[in-house]
């Protein structure tokens, strides 16, 4: 199985807990014979590298330097994420089983790749805009929520890290509960659960 993980933070660029999480996830995936690519942002360490653990990392920078907010920054960065993912896809003989997207930032790229190339994606939720900016309903927050909604709508499977988060997604976005899988990083079956999600998203056909 060939998987591409999209995350806006990855070591050495650590913003919150996603960097650490995607790092240990990708390491575990390689150990389970998953060909693992990871596309992330870095302001200058751009290009393709292979980590000692076997994860292939593509770091992209934003082509537009000046921005008026995080939204314009994210929306222009997505084209470089798409370019990196498309390169992986074409170099791998047009075969990527699934894209796993962490939080809302790279949902636009995942949605385009799905519609253009038919690559299904998993939307892995770490946090929601409604929790980060509680009850904020300015256009800025609503725009982020609309991108999150697009992710819930277009994804093949959604993962949440807890039952509570699953219920929150259902409550806020009216996503069908059965579309959301709880995958707890502290569970003993963590990686197995994740692999099941990938297989489910890829249509059950792909095997590790």
């Amino acid at each position: 199985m060939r998987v591409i993980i999209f995350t806006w933070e990855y070591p050495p660029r650590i913003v919150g807990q996603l960097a650490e999480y995607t790092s240990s996830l990708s390491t575990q995936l390689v150990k389970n014979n998953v060909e693992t690519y990871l596309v992330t942002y870095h302001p200058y360490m751009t290009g393709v590298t292979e980590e000692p653990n076997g994860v292939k990392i593509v770091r992209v920078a934003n082509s537009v330097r000046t921005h008026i907010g995080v939204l314009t920054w994210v929306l222009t960065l997505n084209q470089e994420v798409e370019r990196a993912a498309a390169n992986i896809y074409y170099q791998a003989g047009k075969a990527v089983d699934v894209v796993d997207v962490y939080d809302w930032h790279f949902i636009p790229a995942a949605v385009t790749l799905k519609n253009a190339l038919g690559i299904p994606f998993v939307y892995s939720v770490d946090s929601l805009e409604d929790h980060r900016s509680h009850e904020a309903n300015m256009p800025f927050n609503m725009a982020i929520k609309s991108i999150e909604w697009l992710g819930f709508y277009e994804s093949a499977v959604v993962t949440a890290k807890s039952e509570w988060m699953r219920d929150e997604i259902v409550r806020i976005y009216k996503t069908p509960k059965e579309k959301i899988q709880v995958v707890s990083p502290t569970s003993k079956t963590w990686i197995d659960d994740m692999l099941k999600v990938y297989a489910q998203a890829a249509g059950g056909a792909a095997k590790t």
Partner: protein
Amino acid sequence: MFLTWEFPPRVIGGISPHVFYLSKSLAKNGVKVHVVTCDFPGAPARETLDGVEVYRVDSYKNPSPDFATWVYLMNLNMQKEAAAIAAKLPEKIDVFHAHDWLVATAGIGLKHVFRKPLLVTMHSTEIGRRDGLHTSTEKMISETEAWLTYEAWKVICCSQYMVSHVKWAFGLPDDKLVMVPNGVDWAVYEKVRKHELKDFRTTFASPEEKLVLFVGRLVYEKGAHVLINSIPKILEKVNAKFVIVGSGYMKEQLSTIVKSMGLEHKVLFTGFLDEESLMKLQCSADVSVVPSLFEPFGIVALEAMAAKSPVVVSDTGGLGEIVEHDVTGVKVYPNNVDSLAWGVTKVLTDEKYRNSLREDAYRRIHERYDWDKIAQQTERIYEGVLGEYSKSFWA
């Protein structure tokens, strides 16, 4: 596949008619054209128009804090829809053709996911529109334009002036730039019912008044204020009515100036006019004035020429290339009230001169600004790009 943020009936500026006529003429020449554009109230989401496949996508799906952010969010949706359309078509899209930065991110993304050449027509630039880059928004837009031209296989501009401007603004190599002029649909002006013009004209000007026409957005770069400031000088020599068509952020300011000059009885602000009235007005005008300070192309001058109205234009940008001084129109110094007043007065006081300008301008339109000829030029560019592409590792 064309990407454009405006397509009739959505008309904001010059891109809409440009894409409309270019796509129709390409279709007539046997090129299959798919136009992906923003939605518009009352316009169908999907239609086939003279052989052109039109798709209108929801452009207000995502709430946006400001215009520039709206553009990128609209692109998110446009790209998603265009990707789905292109993937489902029985035939492959050969070329993505973007019009201006307003569809930059959609165009760049589609190029990479489908690995097909991207072309861009740069109708204007932020640095030109704003006469410099003063805010973060303007810098961001300019950098987006630079990125778009970087990603494009060829950059098409509508005038030699724009070719050199874009080359300077983004540091592009010569062989990446190509000039294809804008065209004008001269045939629609032949359909204007000439016998109605006399009555129509009286609603704007009395018979003894000459009719001076300005058509354009009321924004700084279009220079309506230069025309207004030249009015007293023109009125010294000739009795005229000044009709100003269009709207924009300077509208209030301009009408205040007119009032303070005591010229309310000589200046008429019509606001945005429907197409038929506008064409009738262009056919009725004794002179059409295009006093722009910055004008990448100046399609309004071509329209006036097609309507057989003599033109007075400022010698700037693409306008200066359209008009040959003393032959197809009069060129005056940009942002120069005395020069503009001189040009307008000269045309209005000499009927023989006026008629010779009309005839030569009309002939020039047919020779150089016919959409069929422009579509053929564009098709040759596509063929050239596809020839190069076929030898690349993407093919």
